[in-house]
């Protein structure tokens, strides 16, 4: 996470501090002036250009799923990123078909996304990695700003949005973000990535009642039978043997 320190956070604080953090990512990106870091300029220009284009048909179609938080551009980005983090293959479902985008959308639009249970009093300082999360951003702010940043980074370095890149190039872009090698305009790359990945895993492995883990497919893939779990009479029977009981979620019982 050492690379996160190299990110100039002041540029971001200026925007977030002005209360603009909840504004759409496009507006957020456009408001920065002058550039806080020279290398950002092409990225931002490219993104401004991209954002000015009419929304492609795919995004419109996506909106049929119903979104509480993400705008159509963000939905496209999130799905492209999810498809890269957990692609579908014969081992198990991909994050997109598992419903991770829906999970994330609901989480970010609700209390968690808006910063419930997060101490948000200043002053804010970067701190050490051991001191944990110190950004003046709610999870919703962080994810939104980071989506715009990564999109801008993809445009600047690969001349296309994430969703228009082939799988290998998407993976390369996200690896650079994961490892903090990508210089993002507003959010620390590694922190954003961890948050995005955590939400992905929560959606993938959480109870389907939250909108992810469709058909409990992720649980079936690993062999977790779900809830409610009453194993007092089975623990001996299945010691060192594959468990053969049903896989159930909260809604299967309630």
């Amino acid at each position, binding site marked *: 996470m050492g690379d996160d320190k190299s990110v100039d956070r002041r540029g971001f604080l200026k925007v977030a501090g002005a209360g603009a953090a909840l504004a759409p990512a496009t507006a957020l990106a456009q408001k920065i002036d002058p550039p806080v870091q020279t290398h950002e300029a092409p990225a931002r220009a490219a993104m401004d250009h991209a954002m000015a284009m009419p929304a492609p048909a795919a995004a419109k179609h996506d909106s049929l799923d119903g979104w509480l938080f993400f705008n159509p551009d963000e939905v496209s980005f999130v799905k492209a990123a999810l498809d890269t983090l957990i692609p579908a293959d014969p081992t198990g479902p991909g994050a997109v078909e598992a419903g991770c985008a829906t999970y994330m959308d609901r989480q970010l639009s609700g209390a968690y996304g808006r910063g419930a*249970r*997060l101490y948000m*009093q200043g002053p804010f300082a970067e701190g050490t*990695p*051991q001191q944990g999360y110190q950004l003046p951003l709610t999870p919703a702010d962080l994810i939104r700003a980071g989506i715009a940043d990564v999109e801008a980074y993809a445009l600047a370095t690969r001349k296309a949005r994430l969703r228009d890149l082939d799988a290998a190039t998407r993976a390369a872009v996200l690896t650079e973000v994961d490892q903090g090698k990508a210089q993002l305009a507003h959010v620390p790359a590694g922190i954003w990535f961890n948050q995005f990945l955590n939400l992905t895993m*929560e959606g993938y492995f959480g109870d389907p009642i939250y909108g992810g883990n469709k058909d409990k497919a992720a649980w079936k893939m690993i062999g977790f039978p779900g809830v409610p*779990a009453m194993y*007092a009479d089975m623990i001996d029977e299945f*010691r060192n043997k594959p468990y053969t009981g049903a896989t159930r979620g909260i809604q299967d019982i309630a």
Partner: protein
Amino acid sequence: MATQLKPVDVLLVGYGWTGGILAKELASTGLKILALERGGPRDTSPDFLEPSKDDEIRFAVRHELMQDVSRETLTFRNDSKQTALPMRQLGSFLPGNGVGGAGVHWNGVTWRFSPWDHEAHTRTVEKYGAKIIPEDMHLQDWGVSYDELEPYYDKFEKTCGVSGKAGNLKGQKIDGGNVFEGARTNEYPNPPLKQTQAGAMFDKAARNLGYHPFPAPASNASQPYVNPDGIAYGQCHYCGFCERFGCEANAKASPHFTVMPIAAKNPNFELRTNAAVQKVLLDSTGKKAIGVVYIDARGREFIQPADLVVLSAFALGNVALLLWSGIGKPYDPVTHTGVVGRSYAYQASSGATAFFDEKTYFNNFMGAGALGTNIDDFNGDSYDFAKYGFIGGGGIGASTSGGRPIQGRPTPPGTPRWGLDWKKATARHYLHTANISNQGSNMAHRANYLDLDPTYRDIYGRPLMRMTFNFLDNEAKLMKSLADVCATIGKEMGAERVDARTNPVPYSIVPYQSTHNTGGAVMGDDPRTSVVNKYCQVWDVPNVFVTGACVFPQNAGKNPTGTVGALAYWIADALKDKYLKSPGALVRA
């Protein structure tokens, strides 16, 4: 303006395990008892019912039952050269909130500390000489011995219906129990839980290596049980949703269905929830508490007079209250004087993940919070720790406490964190991995302490408590050495691959490690190095008593609550048999 309320005799600040025990035990005095709890009420039914109770996102990931750090938190730094910053979200530890405290969502591993633990200084010096103690270490005796506490350990075990097997009954060593434990008067109230595949393999491997395995003592009832107070326990379902969750079966001991319903029968007892105690009020001499100030759910402030105040607000909450109230002299690490906040310690844990072939099924999802097989061959003075270059040790074991997949999906080192290879490895190892862990002791050091932060405040406007803490040399070595032992056992179990690990050094507030925060208001026999005497009575303000793990002079290689519970019963007897008969200092300074 604060509203002045009618006085009570005994005031309990915080209503978790220790508050509940005190409320029940003091009923026989006929005194008017009031408990103030900052969180809300809750009960098994309707709050912890299936299937909603088995919700990993709500309870384990979003911490629904724990302290809300947007309201109250602490600041943290590794050493006093750094600037402390707020713990903005929960991580390393999860203090409870609401009726029952963390007793509602603990795992239930219920140890007795060993005779050595209670007299660590004397016994270390006897064996190795004083020179072995590093200059920066506060190694202290507790002022209370294991033998004095034994009846109280026994009492707490019966309250909790602990499932286990004795290894030392009245001095007679019993194979299959913990032969290193202090002498017990009685067998555990319930037989051990069923053994899992991980436990069985650990047991065999440990024996092969010459160690002495035994079932971990568990406050998860292995059979239906009625405790001496007439409280009925259901049998554990082995559901694997224990730690961070309430129990639907009343099989995991919790104060909310054991001591608290009995306390509530007392017509002289009252509980007020959503009552956040701000501080203890002292009279003009500063040597006598006259009550507390608290704020209710609507933000109204009340002054509640009381003759006797017991701090039962968890280890961290108790130290914060002492600091906010100006009780006892705050510790100063530079001059090395003062006592409140001194000797904060934690748990120096490490372990090894053991990856097996696909024919070995651990089925960790069939588990219970405290279900495990352990050895104490490297704990306390059961071995020669000096040979390893540190003081202390740890309990080592293989536990099967659940398979909740958001939190636990082991993959071998080198596996990517995402992508197809990650998915393949996750699916391959989920059912075929065992975890061997060391729960290491943590000695107290000069540099580790609690005080008040100069900058940050809580929603009530009080300064946040500041934690200055690191794993120092002694603990770093301990974690490493005992991780190696864990790895050796993993190999002996037949693992294809073993991955040894330690808690992060430097200590990090981010990943969950344990809610075993200790020290800061330690007990002892010298007011210059302790806040409370052997009865947990504040030296400087004798009508204030302190419960919880904050009184531990250093932390043992074991979970704290067996000792926390025993001490609560011990305090209750000291109050009933000594203090209330003749209020005043129970020990001459």
